[in-house]
């Protein structure tokens, strides 16, 4: 799958990627009204990653339905609408608008955007609010409901249990980590909002640990996200308990990254004589460990 906010609405990538080969497209977060997003600079490259402060710039759910959904409907892949909102009512309203449309196969709820003043992370860092939103949305749809969790909390598994209890079908994790970058010459922050969300290879070890924590806490499927750039990264997430993975920042560098990874997983299975990639999920042998020299040299 391609992660929300890293593949637009799919239509910008068709020149270079066969998007039908994706497991799913998670749309850019959709809000009730169009959002301009934050002023520049919105992105900065950091060691092994990038910080962003896009601010949920998007065309709004109504224009999405009119302008983007027809294209997505024509694809032979799963379309998950990602929803962001400032209030619980607004989450419901966006979902209701999409619920009547053909072509949306499920929802991923962004309760964890670090870059907006209203809503976003305020929900995602409150277990009660996250649970409450999940419960309300659950009552409004029979389609798959995925809650995307933030790592910017003390115990992510508490949130995972809460949304499982509230009826979520799956959990995706992790959203970006709050980070910051500074220019020492000018003593200025490098993002207009001072802090932003860190993504890319730099966050992979953290994401793996969070997914591992969540997968042991809940029974619903976990979708692993965080710094996946190649098939090995993806396999690591499957082994620690993710049932699927999303590729995010790597899409910016290589719009075919997710497709190459999907093909790579199949090739790995064939090589290892595993006839069902599902058998990999959670198959980590946490009691053993590898001599560090084997991977170090």
């Amino acid at each position, binding site marked *: 799958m391609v992660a929300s906010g890293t593949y637009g609405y799919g239509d910008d990538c068709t020149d270079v990627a066969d998007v039908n080969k994706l497991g799913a497209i998670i749309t*850019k977060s959709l809000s009730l009204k169009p959002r*301009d*997003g934050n002023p*520049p600079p919105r*992105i900065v490259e950091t060691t092994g*990653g990038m910080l962003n402060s896009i601010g949920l710039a998007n065309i709004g759910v109504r224009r999405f339905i009119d302008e983007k959904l027809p294209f997505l409907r024509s694809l032979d892949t799963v379309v998950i609408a990602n929803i962001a909102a400032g209030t619980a009512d607004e989450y419901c309203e966006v979902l209701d608008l999409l619920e009547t449309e053909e072509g949306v196969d499920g929802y991923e709820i962004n309760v964890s955007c670090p870059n907006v003043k209203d809503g976003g992370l305020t929900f995602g860092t409150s277990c009660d609010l996250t649970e409450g939103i999940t419960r309300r949305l659950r009552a409004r749809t029979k389609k798959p409901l995925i809650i995307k969790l933030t790592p910017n909390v003390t115990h992510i598994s508490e949130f995972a249990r809460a949304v499982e209890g509230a009826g979520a079908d799956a959990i995706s994790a992790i959203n970006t980590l709050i980070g910051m970058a500074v220019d020492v010459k000018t003593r200025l922050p490098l993002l207009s909002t001072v802090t932003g969300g860190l993504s890319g290879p730099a966050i992979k070890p953290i994401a793996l640990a969070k997914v591992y924590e969540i997968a042991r806490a809940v029974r619903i499927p976990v979708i692993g996200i965080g710094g996946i750039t190649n098939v090995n990264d993806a396999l690591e997430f499957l082994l620690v308990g993710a049932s699927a993975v999303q590729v995010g920042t*790597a899409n*910016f560098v290589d719009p075919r990254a997710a497709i190459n990874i999907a093909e790579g997983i199949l090739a790995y299975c064939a090589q290892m004589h595993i006839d069902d990639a599902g058998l990999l999920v959670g198959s980590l042998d946490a009691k053993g460990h590898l001599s560090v020299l084997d991977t170090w040299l």
Partner: protein
Amino acid sequence: MIQALCLVQGVHQVAENIFVLRFVSSTISRTSRAGQFVNIRTGDGYEPLLRRPFSVYRTEGDDVEIIFNVVGRGTAALSRKHTGDRIDVLGPLGVPFTLDADDFATAVLIGGGLGVAPLPIATSALRTLGKPILTLLGSRSSTQLVESHLENLRVATDDGTRGYEGNVVALAAKILSDSTYKKPKLFACGPIPMLRSVADLARRRDLPCEVSLEGAMGCGFGICQGCPVELIDSDKKYALMCKDGPAFDIRRIRI
């Protein structure tokens, strides 16, 4: 837009700290227009992580050239490429200058520093269109001027080692006051402060003007939303530098 592993045909230093890299891509060569860019992976792995954008400098047959100075990790890595290496290129990207518009008779091409990059292609396109060209090129010093493949060229250097002593916008202001050009339009590329003063000059003299912006981009084709440019009088607050630009009419944007 295509994504391809392109064969490097050579990297040559053309001025102080300024390099031209030539690679093979018949599609990019055939379809690139003045002001469009390519987004290049400069490393083999994910360090540096993001691609680096470069204006298409020249095209010749199946070959494409970019011009750059070494300012950081990405450009340092590119300057070390050898003939026979492969580089991952995405392009051509972005909206070009509108050279075929009829709102002008004389094209005044203004380049500051590496802002010379889109001018050779603009020159050949304007020649084909049969439009007269005046080219104004500025740099800090004569050692950093790259003057080839341009037409009717006047130069300015900050230190006065070549041509007009001062910045290229001051030269443009002087020339536009002293001479009469038929229906001139300014097409400028360079650092943002320079483009700002070109835009001021155009507004003062009531001339049409397009600028090609340079700046940090995440993806280069619109999916990351990382390169907003503030719009004037629009229902949208921002355009994207990579997808809606990098060439913009100055009446559309706040720079």
